[in-house]
């Protein structure tokens, strides 16, 4: 055993990010950490590496209790982390990056010769050849990733944590990385590997730990866990299997509000085709990184469409910008509410009324009374917990912020609302409330595109389900075809 966590608990305002999680990393193994959005993967890593201090629980390093006070401290203890985004300096040379912050010094400053030698040695250990004098920015992303790993190994390292190291690599580059990881494993290192590509998990890992909603689902030996079971562990369904779907499975064929035809974007989802009718909820199922968010971003005019088109009524568009999308009656509740959703300094009321006010035009200000009416209506309906509507939204808990963002669009009554993880991080009661609200608005003729990491929600609310895998649309299910096992099979890539 090299790294252990026992009964780890960690909470943020109102949300339990980790709830009694156990984790074991052995010497000479590659261990995959799996889970959907909000499962607690990154919180667990941050607790292990000293970014967060857990509320309770024990951390053991080679059997001895330890408490890293900072990432630096964790590195000194022998736990190195390579993050998804490469946190290195692209304008410095490969050698400088590898030794950054721990350059060997002599009486005349940094001993550059030794820096280069150390960098060469670190790269040689990974059996990669690179010009150590080249600026980091001039080499490929894959090599940059390997340099980041070489830097992590430059200190005496017992446990290596890789947070989605392959998300920006192509197939050959992934193979190269895996070869390096296998070599490190044979040297006895413990490697924790986070990814959302199932194939890669099966290609490289020995064991899998699955988290869901901050809880440990279990630790499994990779070779003994069928893919389908892994998906069902990640997505979870047991509790709600009996819950009847809210939305009717077949709608009487009516008009089409929007039809998407063979839409693809560069570095985005490929080959998406589907139709949305008024009063229809279309669920997007797929794992994190399968292209759910990217699809919504293209439809909303944020990311450019490279080929294919979207048709509203009889207007066919192969280019779409955000203002046009909004004029066509679209709205988006983005996934990352902090950076794309809330206006932190503004009050709950101002946040909630933003879309309505903007649609009226800036010169026709909503009176305080009109605002108050809508706001108190939504505060009651969605049970938004706030002392009053004039409190800055940044002081609300995440779940309540989410409800305000949802209300922001619902108040404006769009024709088609794109919901990206609308229930992430909010309590069960409110989730149910939101599902019911969606259903009643749907009956009123509003359409939804609904993305959720929780399959049961997609299952419960959708009239139609699109399945995405590896940034590609792999199927469309309607009516009685909507079946959790079937969806999971498609997500896992099993032939039917």
């Amino acid at each position, binding site marked *: 055993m090299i790294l252990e966590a026992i009964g780890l608990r960690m909470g943020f305002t109102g949300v339990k990010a980790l709830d009694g999680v156990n984790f074991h990393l052995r010497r000479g193994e590659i261990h995959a950490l799996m889970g959907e959005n909000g499962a607690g993967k990154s919180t667990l890593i941050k607790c292990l590496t000293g970014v967060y201090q857990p509320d309770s629980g024990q951390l053991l390093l080679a059997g001895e209790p330890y408490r890293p006070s900072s990432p630096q401290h964790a590195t000194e203890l022998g736990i190195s982390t390579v993050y998804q985004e490469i946190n290195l300096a692209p304008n410095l040379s490969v050698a400088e990056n590898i030794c950054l912050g721990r350059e060997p010094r002599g009486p005349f400053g940094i001993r550059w010769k030794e820096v280069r030698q150390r960098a060469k040695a670190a790269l040689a250990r990974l059996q990669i050849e690179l010009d150590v004098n080249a600026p980091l920015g001039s080499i490929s992303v894959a090599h940059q990733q390997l340099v980041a790993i070489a830097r992590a190994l430059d200190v005496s390292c017992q446990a290596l944590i890789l947070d989605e190291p392959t998300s920006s690599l192509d197939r050959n580059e992934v193979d190269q990385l895996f070869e390096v990881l296998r070599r490190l494993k044979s040297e006895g290192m413990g490697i924790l590997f986070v990814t959302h590509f199932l194939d890669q998990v099966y290609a490289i890992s020995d064991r899998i730990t699955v988290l869901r909603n901050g809880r440990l689902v279990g630790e499994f030996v990779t070779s003994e866990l069928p893919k389908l079971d892994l998906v069902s562990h990640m997505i979870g369904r047991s509790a709600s299997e009996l819950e009847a779907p809210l939305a009717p499975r077949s709608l009487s064929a009516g008009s089409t509000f929007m039809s998407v035809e063979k839409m693809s974007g560069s570095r985005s989802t490929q080959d998406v085709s589907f139709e949305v009718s008024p009063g229809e909820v279309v669920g997007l199922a797929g794992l994190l990184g399968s292209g759910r968010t990217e699809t919504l971003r293209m439809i909303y005019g944020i990311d450019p469409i490279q080929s294919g088109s979207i048709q509203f009524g009889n207007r066919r568009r192969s280019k779409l910008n955000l203002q046009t999308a909004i004029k066509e009656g679209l709205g988006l509740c983005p996934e990352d509410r902090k950076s*794309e959703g809330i206006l932190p300094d503004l009050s709950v009321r101002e946040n909630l009324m*933003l879309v309505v006010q903007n649609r009226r035009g800036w010169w026709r200000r909503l009176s305080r009374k009109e605002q108050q009416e809508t706001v108190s209506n939504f505060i009651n309906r969605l049970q938004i917990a706030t002392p*009053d509507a004039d409190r800055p939204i940044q002081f609300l808990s995440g779940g309540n912020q989410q409800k305000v963002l949802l209300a922001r669009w619902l108040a404006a009554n769009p024709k088609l609302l794109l919901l990206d993880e609308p229930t992430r991080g909010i309590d069960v009661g409110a989730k149910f409330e939101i599902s019911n609200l969606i259903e009643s608005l749907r009956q009123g003729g509003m359409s939804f595109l609904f993305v959720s990491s929780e399959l049961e929600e997609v299952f419960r609310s959708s009239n139609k389900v699109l399945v995405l895998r590896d940034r590609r649309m792999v199927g469309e299910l309607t009516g009685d075809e909507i079946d959790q096992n079937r969806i999971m099979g498609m997500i896992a890539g099993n032939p039917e």
Partner: protein
Amino acid sequence: MNSRQLPPYLWTIALLLAVFIFNAAFSPGFFTIEWRDGRLFGSLVDIVNRAVPVLLLSLGMTLVIATKGVDLSVGAVMAICGAVAACLIAHPQGSLLKDFQVESLAGIIAAALLVAVVCGLFNGLLVAKIKVQPIVATLLLMVTGRGIAQLLTNGQIVVFEHPEFQALGSGSWFGLPSPIWIFMLSFVLIGLLVHGTAFGKLAAATGSNETAARYAGVKVDSIKVWVYVICAVCAGIAGLIGAADIKAADSNNAGLYLELDAILAVAVGGTAMAGGKFTLVGSVIGAILMQALTTTILTRGVGAETTSILKAVVVVAVCLLQSPAFRESYRRILGLGRAQA
């Protein structure tokens, strides 16, 4: 329970009062305002009158800062607009504008402010469309603006005679100096624009989280262009008052460093430099505080060279008092318990 907070400029008001009381202690007639020759005279009137250029600049600057921007070019825009007005009146030798025949007061003002609008569009389009960082975009006009003003005046200080125009700077209407009236009118108009419509809210939304505002459909680009245009027009008005006051356009010195005073006034008034939260009233109080300090130092016979140091001390003091982290720590030191979140 109502969580509407106290205005952020309480400390600014407190400091302003402290400066006034300090003055009153040394010169007993400080608060006296007399009616002489059909107009008001007194130190307070004088302070506000002298503060007008910075007051005008800080109105526009508040809106720019609310959108997370900054406008360094306002001093240069003052110089340009003063030069335009002076050249239209005096037709100096070699001036680019010597052939333009504009005689009426309204024509002169309109021409100068039109130039200000162009300056504002230049800044705004650079920031909103070409996505140049505001500090860099407006630095361009800050540096080139004085050159443009010199081109207009052919490098001379243009002295002019135009009684009607001069009245903008040194006249008085209904007992108050005309600059104060011009400022009050601008304040009311901008106040109506910002709070009477939703413009202020959308500008604050843009500054608070631009991506979120854009996704909600707010046309953040045009809002940004507008705030830079408004800011430049405010600077243009200030430039006209400045030129009218000295009956001349001095391209090198008109409005010199006033952009910094305006930014200080906005910061001291409690507008968040990171955008999102702004207060026009706070900026007004901030600008008056800055001028009150300058006047105090000069009338106390302390050398003018210490002015900037004292201003700096006051700015630091106000910023510290407004900082939640600082307030938390002195509450702890004084044993007053934790502040409510």
